[in-house]
């Protein structure tokens, strides 16, 4: 087609410029910084070239090992698994014959929007109040019902802080996962389920052998998207616990922030950032293969 190249170029140019300025340039700048000892307090002077020293320090650092463990195991692996499993169970509950018979399904769709529409900052503020040892409703319930002898400081007690954080994140992010599964459930042809029940399959059997396999692609999409959103998230941990008590809940996103803006070690912080970007790029390539290639076959 005549002029195709100019037309394509013109329409992609704005997006290209934004993405160059915000993703490519900062990443290269970050890479360069990560090889220096750039300090927050000597920004104008610039950093001295130190080669891969920041990366060596990172690999050998005990603190970084804990940060890596917190981010991958607690925040991402456990956090995302809880969300996906609860999302599946909740979708099956909302889709159940009982809720259909009682005409509660529409109501549940509305209920699911409420936590989803609540901005993360508000979610953290509410839950910090609810989990408060003195005034919090959760402690009042626990103590009032005799489950706990005295109030629990959920967000500053190392036994409870991770479960509490995961509760906050799950509450806020579960609806999107559930609604996506519900949309996918709607697409199961009724005949398939009827055929299964005619063949004598019990409810449990048809859920296991027909419904769940049908949901698998949606599970893959939501697992990957949740992984990106959770792994990279700064707000939940920072505002709920400030990476504490001590640095007990420190994750990669908060570590990047702490090292750069509290310790002032921008070079070292950039190195952590590069490790984060590398891990996410690996997941991103998986996402391109498993999701984008399947969904947008004509484009990609």
């Amino acid at each position, binding site marked *: 087609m005549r002029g195709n190249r100019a037309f394509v170029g013109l329409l992609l140019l704005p997006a290209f410029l934004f993405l160059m*300025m915000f993703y490519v340039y900062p990443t290269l700048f970050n890479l360069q910084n990560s090889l220096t000892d750039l300090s927050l307090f000597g920004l104008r002077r610039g950093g001295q070239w130190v080669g891969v020293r920041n990366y060596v320090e990172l690999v050998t650092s005990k603190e970084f090992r804990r940060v890596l463990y917190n981010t991958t195991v607690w925040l991402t692996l456990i956090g995302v698994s809880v969300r996906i499993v609860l999302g599946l169970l909740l979708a099956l509950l909302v889709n159940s014959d009982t809720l259909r018979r009682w005409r509660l399904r529409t109501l549940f769709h509305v209920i699911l929007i409420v936590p989803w529409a609540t901005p993360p900052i508000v979610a953290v503020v509410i839950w910090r109040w609810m989990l408060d040892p003195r005034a919090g409703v959760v402690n009042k319930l626990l103590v009032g019902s005799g489950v706990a002898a005295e109030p629990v400081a959920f967000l500053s007690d190392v036994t409870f802080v991770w479960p509490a954080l995961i509760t906050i994140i799950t509450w806020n992010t579960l609806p999107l996962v559930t609604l996506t599964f519900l949309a996918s459930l709607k697409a199961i042809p009724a005949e398939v389920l009827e055929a299964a029940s005619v063949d004598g399959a019990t409810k449990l059997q048809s859920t296991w052998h027909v419904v769940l396999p049908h949901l698998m692609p949606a599970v893959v999409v939501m697992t990957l998207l949740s992984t990106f959103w959770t792994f990279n998230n700064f707000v939940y941990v920072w505002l709920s616990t400030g990476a504490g008590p001590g640095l007990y809940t420190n994750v990669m996103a908060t570590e990047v922030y702490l090292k750069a803006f509290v310790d002032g070690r921008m070079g070292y912080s950039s190195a952590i950032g590069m490790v984060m970007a590398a891990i996410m790029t690996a997941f991103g390539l998986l996402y391109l293969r498993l999701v984008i290639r399947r969904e947008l076959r004509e484009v990609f």
Partner: protein
Amino acid sequence: MGVEPAPAVDVRPLAHAVPRRRRGVRPGELLVLAVALVVAVVLIYPTVWVFFASFKTQETLFSGEFAHYTLRNYRRLFASGFGVHIGNSLVISATAVLISTFVSVIAAYVFSRRRFRWKSVIFGGVMLGQTFPWIILVTPVFILFARLGLLNTYVGIIVCYVAVTIPFSVYLLVGYLESVPRSLDEMAIIDGCPPFQVIWRIVFPIMLPGVVATATYAFILCWSEYLFALAFLTRTDMKTMPLALYAFFGEHTTEWGQVMAAAALTTLPPLLLFLPLQTKLSAGLAAGAVKQ
């Protein structure tokens, strides 16, 4: 994928609806309903409580007492200058979404309808933007903005929000366009319609539902954004609502009433926007899964 398949809310005429409750509660159902009730309470209690608490006085805030509702918290909130932050949030989010949606629509059109060299590399690159850790942008962009004088300006934060919403918007819009038949816009091109007119007159109207869903989602993302606002808007009069809310939370932990009023005001727009949107967006995310 597409952003607009069947609505999740049942729209069948009532005559064909599920049989009425004929036999009362079945034993197994009681358990299901009890679980459903508990789940529903856990899901809505926190947010609903914020709205109730925002109308309570400091003295009755933590009691279960439902009398004595007052607008005092809101009056004091506005008296302390919270209106400025609402204005900032509105201007920044709305402008960013307009620009980001425009940029994403034209890019999505090209990705969906044209063939060109390096297409899958460029498209793959844009999609990888979705997986990018925003936190690592903070330092480089802070330095860049400081040099360009863009810290504490609308322009700076808007450019930032446009950039971070483009990848997801392009993903949703391309998915939507793929579900729209190509015949219409191809016919228009054969008939000699100029390329820009094809986008504006033919494609844009068809993809409007997808555009609305995408723009709403982007708006809510910008409205709730905290990290970049924290880093690039340090002057009080430039701060957006999430920042102002959190600052309040930190400074006046005793002023729970005002914190709750601010939280309620921050939650209201997303809540109102999400109600019509939810079916479209979640169906859009699921659609790829539907297309076997």
